């Protein structure tokens, strides 16, 4: 089984003018991804853009792997233009995912914006928990139908267009004050991740947060994607992308 393979694009589905799902079928046997792990996709066969792009596994089932992508720059634009049937050069699953063994009904999962892409497969794995999902507006909240089967879904938006007005960190604070919370799993923008980490530390709650960083090799060789931690520089691609709050 190889972690470098070609995969065929079998479905591209637009969820907004900027957000799309890519569903790929690897052409050979590849290892099963764990929630929180990621893949490197090569958006082009040319040298511009040059590097592969990292994407969290969104969903995997019956030999297919799926990615939820926001069209933002050169690489994601090219990926958004791919036609069904196109073969893609992939590497993965890479990195350290979320520890599933500590998921319980006292767990809380938090996603901010595109952070949903990295925690969605966790929620498919275990539904009996609280999920806090925030975005700027209701147009940027996705998969609400699928998420309705969770024990509890709390949505927050910055403009109050869906759920409470506010942010995910305040919502998490409220839940921690009201409920028994033994572990938190989170992924969002850097600012949210930092705030969640501080909050969990102050409440001594076990937490795992998925981080994003610009990446080149994806296998721990280039030291390009490091994150500063009290124990020194950690590579997001290999020691992460999911870090324990204790490490931060």
């Amino acid at each position, binding site marked *: 089984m190889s972690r*470098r393979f070609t995969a065929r694009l079998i479905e591209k589905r637009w969820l907004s003018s900027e957000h799309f799902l890519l569903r790929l079928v690897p052409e050979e046997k590849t290892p099963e991804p764990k929630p929180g792990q990621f893949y490197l996709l090569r958006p082009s066969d040319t040298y511009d853009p040059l590097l592969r792009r990292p994407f969290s596994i969104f969903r995997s089932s019956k030999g297919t792997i799926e990615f939820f992508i926001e069209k933002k720059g050169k690489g994601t634009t090219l990926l958004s233009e791919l036609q069904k049937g196109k073969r893609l*050069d992939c590497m993965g699953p890479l990195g350290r995912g979320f520890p599933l063994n500590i998921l319980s009904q006292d767990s809380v999962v938090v996603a901010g914006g595109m952070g949903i892409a990295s925690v969605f497969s966790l929620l498919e794995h275990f539904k009996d928990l609280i999920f806090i999902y925030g975005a700027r507006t209701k147009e940027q909240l996705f998969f609400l139908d699928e998420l309705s089967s969770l024990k509890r879904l709390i949505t927050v938006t910055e403009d109050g267009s869906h759920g409470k007005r506010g942010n995910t960190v305040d919502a998490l604070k409220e839940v921690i004050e009201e409920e028994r919370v033994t572990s938190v799993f989170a992924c969002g923008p850097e600012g949210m991740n930092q705030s969640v980490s501080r909050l969990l530390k102050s409440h001594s709650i076990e937490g795992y947060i998925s981080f994003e960083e610009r990446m080149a*090799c994806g296998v721990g060789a280039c030291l390009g994607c490091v994150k500063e931690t009290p124990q020194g520089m950690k590579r997001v691609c290999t020691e992460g992308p999911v870090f324990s709050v204790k490490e931060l």
Partner: protein
Amino acid sequence: MNLTVKIGNMTMKNPVMTASGTFGYGAEYSEFVDLNALGAVVVKGISLRPREGNPPPRIVETPCGMLNSIGLQNVGLEAFLKEKLPFLRRYDTPVVVNILGDCVEDYEELCTRLDGKVEAIELNVSCPNVKKGGISFAIDREALKELIGKVRKKVKHSTLIVKLSPVSEDIASISVLCEKEGADAVSLINTIPAMAIDIETRRPALANLIGGLSGPAIKPIGVRMVWQVYQAVKIPIIGMGGIMNASDAIEYMLAGATSVAVGTANFVNPSATVDIIEGIKDYMKRHSISDINEITGGIIWEIKDH
């Protein structure tokens, strides 16, 4: 078909090696590449003591290339010898250790400790010389001369390679200096200092502001410099800078390289090195070349008078 090349007293089963800093300590890529197939593995630059490197962001993509400012992060000599080298020793492939220091004494100690334990030592002379106000050895001829002269006395068994920087003024005469002081080979080019700015935030793309440009964008510069150095010295040249495929490797060899190093391409295609080795064989077949050494410096050229 002979693919064997020699760099100093290091024999390589083919001319393709990895470029320092792009292949970790070998183990990181061992799942994607058969390390036994490579001409040599060049590891991430090693200093006497571990280094933390620069704060992130450390890399950014630019057209046909990328900038990096890793800042020489590495595990240090002790950890390299204890934890990294034994893994590479399981393979039948020469190991080249790139080394870096703050002063001549650092390099001397690194060479003393590494000599004979690895097939070759490659001096990264692009680092600032702390004892001389931080001026890089690459642009201070006197310091470079002293450095090579002194480490040469410490390197008795391994092959001594000097990695040249494209910022050196007149790279050909610098390579002559290296040869005179006893270097067994030169490797070039190191990355080119460069910069990128995010115009929306007005922030530099790298925390360190300046980084080294690598990738296909720099290949023609590397080819030109290899050709200039080839005119000036007799010692073998390891060519590098933007080699993505076998055509690029052959171009460098025609310009004068005996061996080539593959860097940024590993990130794009983790099996780039072995793909290049196969491509070189195809080229040799296509052109009925029986010995790879025949193509080194094989560019056909003349300057026409008008």
